[in-house]
């Protein structure tokens, strides 16, 4: 369908009307229940939503079918009644503040979400977009969603799955696709929004911010990079297989396209096993994951970037003892580059990861300092007392999340995406007393 100005205006009018008619009478718990139920319908092995995503999503996202299964598990597995409730309780103190005045200290307070939220989604990783629209529904807002060209499938199917469970709630949600170049359409989508949730690269977010009318709240989520750190105490023979498997998952899922995907894994030296051992084990684990969840098709530019990087390091590695390359037997499926140089090397993505030895956490901080405003998540194993001190230093630098390796791509629903709350920023409060 070719979306016109009239479609956007009609979608706004329709969702706002539905919101005002339906949601004041809806309890937040009922909304949570509907979302969790719709999400659970995706998780069944014979789910027709899953079947449709497998049929439709590999084309635009360029993920393999097996990766679509993984994406469904990660995205919808996190949308449980408990997790959604916890998100609300944690950020607003009590989810019922969205339904009625609740006593908070000596005053009674009630929270209101924006009337209309416009979501401008980006990228082929489905969960940020799905979570974005859930945030809008939880806040009892009307939601207009522009899908990403790399994933026009998941938001549409999710809206349909919600309609199956709760048609009235689904009426508060309109999912449309129009080309990014159609600025007039984007402007119309933003014109009457009370809040805008925008995802994309710096340029896109800058443009959307300029198009957003004054008075509307604008929350932009930019592109980010992540990395991992393994402390020497974790580098034991016993730990190695699980450690490698955890890291291989974090690197390989979403073919490394996500902001939570690590580019580099730093391994502390002087543990029972050395960093090279980890690189070797990681390569094996990447291969095992590739067998189970194949990497998607690459464009010629992507394949060229991987093969050039691989050849350059293979040539160096033939004589330079500081460099070693482990690569999938069929070219370009995955590549592990060991390099004894602590600088942070951004990857060309698509399952290409650096393993770098480091003599201390301090050295890691120095290496990544240059990119501090671009770092999302740091996967650290083990998360012991020493790691907490490191986390404090990372926090000072501006890093938004530290977690165990293997959990990088499984942030809890309540995590502070880009360091900010998910709901608390969007509500307006009324106090009585």
């Amino acid at each position, binding site marked *: 369908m070719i979306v016109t100005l009239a479609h956007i205006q009609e979608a706004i009018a329709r969702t706002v009307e539905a919101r005002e008619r339906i949601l004041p009478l809806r309890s937040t718990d009922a909304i949570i229940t509907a979302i969790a139920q719709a999400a659970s319908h995706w998780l069944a092995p014979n789910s027709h939503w899953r079947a449709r995503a497998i049929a439709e999503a590999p084309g635009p996202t*360029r993920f393999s079918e097996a990766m679509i299964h993984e994406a469904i598990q990660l995205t919808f597995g996190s949308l449980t009644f408990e997790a959604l409730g916890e998100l609300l309780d944690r950020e607003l103190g009590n989810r019922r503040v969205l339904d009625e005045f609740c006593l908070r200290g000596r005053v009674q307070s009630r929270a209101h979400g924006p009337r209309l939220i416009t979501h401008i989604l980006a990228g*082929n990783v489905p969960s940020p977009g799905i979570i974005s629209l859930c945030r809008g529904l939880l806040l009892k807002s009307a939601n207009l969603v522009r899908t990403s060209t790399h994933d026009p499938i998941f938001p549409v199917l999710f809206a349909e799955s919600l309609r199956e469970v709760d048609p009235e709630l689904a009426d508060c949600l309109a999912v449309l696709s129009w080309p990014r170049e159609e600025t007039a359409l984007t402007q119309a989508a933003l014109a009457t929004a009370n809040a805008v949730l925008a995802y994309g690269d710096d340029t896109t977010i800058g443009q959307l911010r300029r198009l957003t009318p004054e008075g509307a709240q604008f929350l932009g989520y930019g592109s980010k*990079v992540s990395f991992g750190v393994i402390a020497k105490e974790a580098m034991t023979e016993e730990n190695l297989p699980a450690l490698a498997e955890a890291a291989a998952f974090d690197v390989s899922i979403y*073919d490394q396209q996500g*902001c939570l995907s690590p580019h580099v894994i730093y391994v502390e030296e002087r543990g029972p096993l050395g960093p090279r051992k980890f690189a070797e084990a990681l390569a094996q684990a990447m291969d095992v994951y590739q067998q189970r969840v194949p990497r998607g098709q690459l464009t010629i530019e*992507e394949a060229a970037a991987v093969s*050039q990087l691989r*050849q350059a390091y293979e*040539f160096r590695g033939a004589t330079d003892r500081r460099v070693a390359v482990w690569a999938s037997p069929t070219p370009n499926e995955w590549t592990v580059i060991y390099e004894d140089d602590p600088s942070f090397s951004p990857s060309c993505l698509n399952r290409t990861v650096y393993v770098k030895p480091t003599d201390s956490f301090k050295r890691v901080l120095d290496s990544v300092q240059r*990119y501090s405003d671009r770092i999302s998540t740091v996967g650290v194993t083990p998360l012991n007392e020493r790691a907490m001190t490191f986390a404090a230093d990372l926090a000072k630098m501006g890093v938004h999340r530290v977690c165990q390796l293997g959990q990088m791509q499984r942030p809890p629903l309540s995590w502070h995406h880009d360091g900010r709350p998910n709901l608390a920023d969007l509500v307006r409060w009324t106090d009585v007393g």
Partner: protein
Amino acid sequence: MLRVSLSTELQQRILAFINGGAGDFESLALEVFAFQREHNAVYRAYCDRQPPVKHWPAIPAVPTSAFKEFAITCFPVAEAVAEFHTSGTTRANAGKHYFKTLELYDAASVPNFRAHLRPENLPMLILTPTPTEAPHSSLAHMLGVVAGDDAEFFVENGTLQLERLQRRLCEMQWQSQPVLLIGTAFAFVHLFDANMTFELPAGSRAMETGGFKGRSREVPKVELYRLFRERLGIDHVVNEYGMTELSTQFYDGAGSIKDVPPWARVLVINPATGQPAAVGQPGLIRVFDLANLWSSLCVQTEDLGVAQADGRFEILGRVAGAEVRGCSLNAESLLKS
């Protein structure tokens, strides 16, 4: 001593082959490969990790990036009579190509240039520095060799001498003297941007080479060739594909299809498989150049091309940055941000 004479003897045979004498690419290529493998320890170590070589297409390629990190030579660098450097590339450090002798380079350059540009009796106006001013530019050297003594160079101290060039073009037009104009694409863009129009006499032609490398506005090829017609009256424009890491240049034959001289071969490699791409399918250009006897016979470029069934090829340009489909940043976009 024996070693030197053997390689000198090999050089003589390659020279004879380039000059149209007897020889066979396959056997010469395998000899050059054996020679380079023996005399370049870095290359040998790399080859030891590659499958054994029975035919020339399997000869391991040296990536252009290696010219930045290693001296890719089969002789002591101190003995080099010339070294050419890459410039204006996307990475900070330059690649270096060392020459024990320029005999093969010069022999490979002249007949190839003459066959494609037919410069007989045409004054050459060259929009590059002289070889003396730019001793590390392979292009300036090549043009110095092919141009002869009468050629005029129009880049001085890194700047295109626009006024002097325009004056010469005026004279040529008045004297009805056809010319051969030679330069990099970005030098021509500077000339075109000066907004002066000429109608050079029939028989005039031009050779353009190289990308833009951020040194002028980027102009698509169709637009560039239109400007040749509109601003200079030149219809006959030949693109030259040459690289610092090679000793042989490739020129447009029919249309934009590049001819491959008998002493070279070009394969287009599918980056997803590492194997030659099917005819008509894009891939990375890999060059086998016998004139690179003292450095590397086989060079893996970072340029995209398409192979023809008969071994000729077409250039699609340097690989553009790959798009990130998700919310991460790749090396290129992160370094830019």
